[in-house]
């Protein structure tokens, strides 16, 4: 991410930067893999097997896509429920990220589900004993709520003021429903793994998995908000709202610190410290996750001087997000490999789809920023005219 300064597009003329060209070139293999996936089945494009039925698309796209969208419910709660109005300026980009994150998850599910055209079955055939049933409903309902929360941005662009007023009128129940659904959804992704006590490595298995997923998502979700402010600052020539990001970083330190402590307690209760001291495969992967995602960010951002320095703030947030991603991959892949008796490494087509979907999300974000009022200092762009989008 750091190598391209060319991504800092002036908003008017189209000059492709590094990432635009990268994702543009990825488009053709993305289409080829898509056609193969749907004509020949999952076996033709993935390294998934009977021994390892869930891979990158669940571990990264689903678990991380939802988790990193957690900034949206955190910030809407902070602004609308805890009434800390000073954070209002960064709510819109956060809701947009959350919404695009959920769209990303749904698109990934279209690839991962064996028969995605039956996704509506979850609405018709109920099994309340299934965590996946809860996950399905949370995805549906929370995506809807995010869409409604984001709708005023689009509606005001086209001058529809009545629906905007209606949404403002119901914003409190809307935000509360969003926080409830997010809490359920984030934790339910951890609950998915409660069912495999005999399969998931004791470094990761715990009856507290739902709580771990929830708290770490809040931490990493805040990290994403900071990262996103930084990236849009680079790409769209904005200033960094340090007065808002610094207190957010403090909240992140608290969330990550609490999370780290509870993880260590759970590992101790499972008697799994041996895996770390013996430096086994699982132990090493745990260290990567824990040092990158918890120890370093907490240590760095505990210091006010580092927190108020944009460079350290962004580095700490980046590490927190990276550690979060490694954690989700560890739970879904590393921790399951031992019981499966096989190693799973995603195939190139699997990676192409995941990266391609991230690219689609980033392009959608860039387009939204160009045509809608996402950031406070933007005057609603009129240069494109109303037909601009």
């Amino acid at each position: 991410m750091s190598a391209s300064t060319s991504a800092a597009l002036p908003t008017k003329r189209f000059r492709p930067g590094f990432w635009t060209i990268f994702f543009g070139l990825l488009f053709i293999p993305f289409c080829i893999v898509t056609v193969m996936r749907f004509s020949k089945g999952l076996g033709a494009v993935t390294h998934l097997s009977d021994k390892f039925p869930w891979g990158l698309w669940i571990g990264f796209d689903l678990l991380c896509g939802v988790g990193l969208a957690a900034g949206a419910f955190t910030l809407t709660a902070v602004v609308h429920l805890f009434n800390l109005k000073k954070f209002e300026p960064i709510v819109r980009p956060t809701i947009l990220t959350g919404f695009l994150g959920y769209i990303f998850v749904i698109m990934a599910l279209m690839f991962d589900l064996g028969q995605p055209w039956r996704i509506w079955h979850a609405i018709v055939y109920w099994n309340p004993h299934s965590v996946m049933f809860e996950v399905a409903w949370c995805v549906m309902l929370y995506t809807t709520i995010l869409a409604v929360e984001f709708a005023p941005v689009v509606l005001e662009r086209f001058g529809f003021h009545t629906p905007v007023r209606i949404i403002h009128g119901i914003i409190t129940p809307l935000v509360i429903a969003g926080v409830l659904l997010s809490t359920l959804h984030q934790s339910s992704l951890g609950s998915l793994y409660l069912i495999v006590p005999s399969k998931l490595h004791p470094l990761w298995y715990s009856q507290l998995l739902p709580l771990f997923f929830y708290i770490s998502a809040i931490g990493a979700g805040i990290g994403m908000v900071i990262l996103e402010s930084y990236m849009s600052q680079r790409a769209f020539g904005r200033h960094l709202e340090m007065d808002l990001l610094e207190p957010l970083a403090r909240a992140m330190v608290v969330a990550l610190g609490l999370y780290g402590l509870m993880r260590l307690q759970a590992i101790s209760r499972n008697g799994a410290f041996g895996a770390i001291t013996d430096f086994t495969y699982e132990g090493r992967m745990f260290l990567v996750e824990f040092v990158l995602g918890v120890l370093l960010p907490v240590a760095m951002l505990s210091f006010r001087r580092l927190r108020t320095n944009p460079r350290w703030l962004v580095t700490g947030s980046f590490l927190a997000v990276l550690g979060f991603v490694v954690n989700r991959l560890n739970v879904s892949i590393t921790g399951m490999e031992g019981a499966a008796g096989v190693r799973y490494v995603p195939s190139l087509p699997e990676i192409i789809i995941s990266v391609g979907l991230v690219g689609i999300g980033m392009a959608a974000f860039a387009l939204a920023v160009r045509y809608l009022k996402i950031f406070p200092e933007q005057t609603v762009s009129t240069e494109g005219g109303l037909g601009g989008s």
Partner: protein
Amino acid sequence: MTVGLLFDATRCIGCGACASACKEQNKLPGPVEDETSAYTWTTVQPKGDSYMRRLCMHCLVPTCASVCPVGALHKTPEGPVVYDAEKCMGCRYCMMACPFDVPKYQWDRAVPIIGKCIMCTSRVKKGEPTACAEACPASATIFGSRADLIREAKDRIRQNPSGYLDHIYGLTEAGGTSVMMLSNQPFEKLGLKTGLPSEPPAMRTWQVLSNIPDFVAVWGVFLYGVHWITARREVVSAHHPTQKTPGITDDSHTGRPS
């Protein structure tokens, strides 16, 4: 009455008649494979000087049925755990969750479904034994009511304590299963998972899921309370004579005293 199967590894001669009979009964394509798959629902594996049959264990509280979001898997009153391919959307959570790694997937199909032993449900419902039990020339796999099979297994162990491991695999594993196994050597040597908790895994998720209604009510009221207090505080501070902070707009409530 629930039925089940008892497989006695000390009697199995490894002929594979059960696996062939299964293919025929369930019209599964291709030859019998070494491992179970979506097209081979049971198979006999040589393990040292013994043989082990692999097939769905038909849990009393099936993990697969508990995790399926659309309820495509369920336990019939007779005992078999059956699969409704018409409902399945292919999330593969059953494969992930099954403590015995039983459900398998049609990785080679564009419209794939799960494949697993369904204990010849149609035969069982008519009171007939499963195809595999009927085909076994050595009576290594026998069919009967689960209670009778447990009695039979205990008898065999009691009558020949040196010839058997004192363990009926499936009596308590994952909460108990309708398919049970006997052997003269540790089951992990035969490729089975041992040390499974006797509590059905489904209980662990239900402990969490059953709390959701309470959680939603309490958390929802709490959040609204927080909003009510913070919004009220803003109104009060805005109209307090000593600290007047004009120009606060709050679009989320209309509590403005006149």
